[in-house]
């Protein structure tokens, strides 16, 4: 067991944002959390990351804690791509002598080996997200939390980054909790898809994604369709 969420609720003094969410995520599992805007999926991620306290319930994460990847790359603009990664290594306690080599390895892992000396504004959106992914991997935590990391990218770049993330996940088998509002993305990446309802965010449904679905376009399309229907049903509840 990697992450255990028990009866988690959150409110900011007014209406509840998250209501009694319970689930457990296995070590090395890739779980996609799907929901419309305002369903509290980012709040859920922030609570798991320890950035916000829950109002009620409990979250258990592995002792090492969790790495976090933001929707915008959140690279520090005054540092080069390499220095951004080195900062994460430094704050993790990696000795100075090893930082440069490790940062270079991480850059090469996301195919940015030659772009290490560039500053964030000199990188394209996709390259920034890859650098951000490299930094999150550099935190070397058992859990990787991703908050719509590819939402702002164009479709071509997003497809490539899906492959990139899948490749790295297959190689390293970290536990990933991936928040998105894109059904295709959730089906493409997740082993399991959790659907959150909106206002308050509750666990509305979940699907286990058979690995065979991924290689069968027809089955993938059918499942995407099914989940999209369920998501729309959730959204329609708010029409009245």
């Amino acid at each position, binding site marked *: 067991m990697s992450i255990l969420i028990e009866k988690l609720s959150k409110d900011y003094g007014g209406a509840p944002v998250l209501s009694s969410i319970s689930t457990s995520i296995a070590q090395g599992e890739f779980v996609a959390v799907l929901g419309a805007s305002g369903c509290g999926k980012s709040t859920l991620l922030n609570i798991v990351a320890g950035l916000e306290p829950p109002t009620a319930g409990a979250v258990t994460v592995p002792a090492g804690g969790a790495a976090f990847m*933001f929707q915008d790359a959140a690279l520090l603009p005054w540092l080069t791509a390499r220095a951004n990664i080195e900062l*994460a290594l430094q*704050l993790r306690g990696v000795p100075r002598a090893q930082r440069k080599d490790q940062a270079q390895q991480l850059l090469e892992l996301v195919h940015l080996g030659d772009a290490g000396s560039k*500053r964030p*504004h000199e990188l394209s959106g996709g390259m920034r997200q890859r650098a951000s992914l490299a930094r999150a991997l550099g935190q*070397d935590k*058992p859990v990787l939390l991703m908050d719509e990391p590819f939402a702002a990218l164009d479709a071509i770049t997003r497809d490539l980054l899906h492959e990139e993330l899948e*490749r790295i996940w297959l190689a390293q088998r970290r536990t990933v909790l991936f928040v998105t509002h894109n059904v295709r993305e959730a089906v493409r990446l997740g082993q399991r898809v959790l659907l959150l309802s909106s206002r308050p965010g509750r666990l509305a449904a979940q699907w286990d994604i058979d690995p065979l679905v991924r290689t069968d376009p027809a089955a993938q399309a059918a499942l995407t369709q099914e989940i999209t229907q369920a998501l729309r049903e959730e959204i329609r509840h708010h029409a009245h």
Partner: protein
Amino acid sequence: MPTSPTLSGAPRTQSQAPETDTLRELEAGLDSLQDAPVATRINAGRILLPVGTVLGLLSLWQLAAWFGSPREDLFPGPLQVLGTAGELAADGRLGEAVGTSLQRGVLGFLLALAIGTPLGLLLAGVPTLRRGIGPLISGLQVLPSVAWVPAAIIWFGLTDATVYFVVLMGATPSIINGLLSGVDTVPPQYRRLGTVLGASRLQGLLRIVLPAALPGYLAGLKQGWAFSWRSLMAAEIIAVGGSIGFGLGSLLQQGRDLSQMAMVVSAILAILIVGIAIELLVFSPLERRLLRRRGLAAGASR
């Protein structure tokens, strides 16, 4: 759980290798397509335009002096002022005045920097303190520092201490407020990033908040320098004599005492030129470098 970020020990089959290479090539192709070359050409207008403007204004001034002014002693033209400035430079007064003022201005500014920076950091770090003292600092920033001159003369007499005190009171609030506004405008995302990366309070301050606040701090320094220079001139005009040396403000005052308009105008121009020179030689390059490194100066009009 892998402890190293490399692929070693990864369950990776032979058949995956070509796919990885294709992905690498695809990404490299996309990267180079999205990598827009930045045109870096020197804009001649950036130099010619202000120089041309100044020359034009000087010509207008000279024409006005020739054809429009009956009293040369009340409205000297630029040529006459240049002549007077030449005389002042020749007998050493202009050089002494510029040297004395510049030395005081820079020293006073550095003092303000040394006092304002830690104070600003303290206020940024302790909200209670800031709530208490913050409005007072903003008030001091609005108060013309020339108001301190009489008090300073009573306390310190006609000494350099009077001049430095006035400069300090002029510049320090701007430096503190610049630093505070720099810290205030740090995107919250960066602080969250610090938390996520496991930074301690001090590490977060030193590695993330302060570098992020640098542009605001620099703007505060720039304003602080401007206030130093203005306060200094005010103090030098009012406090003449005693052990106070001969600065540009004193030169200005001397011109007034002698009713020599050309000398007054020479002093005004010298004060202006020193101000512009510091801006162009110190702050402008610093600011440009800082902003360019962060990709913020691309469309700037300078």
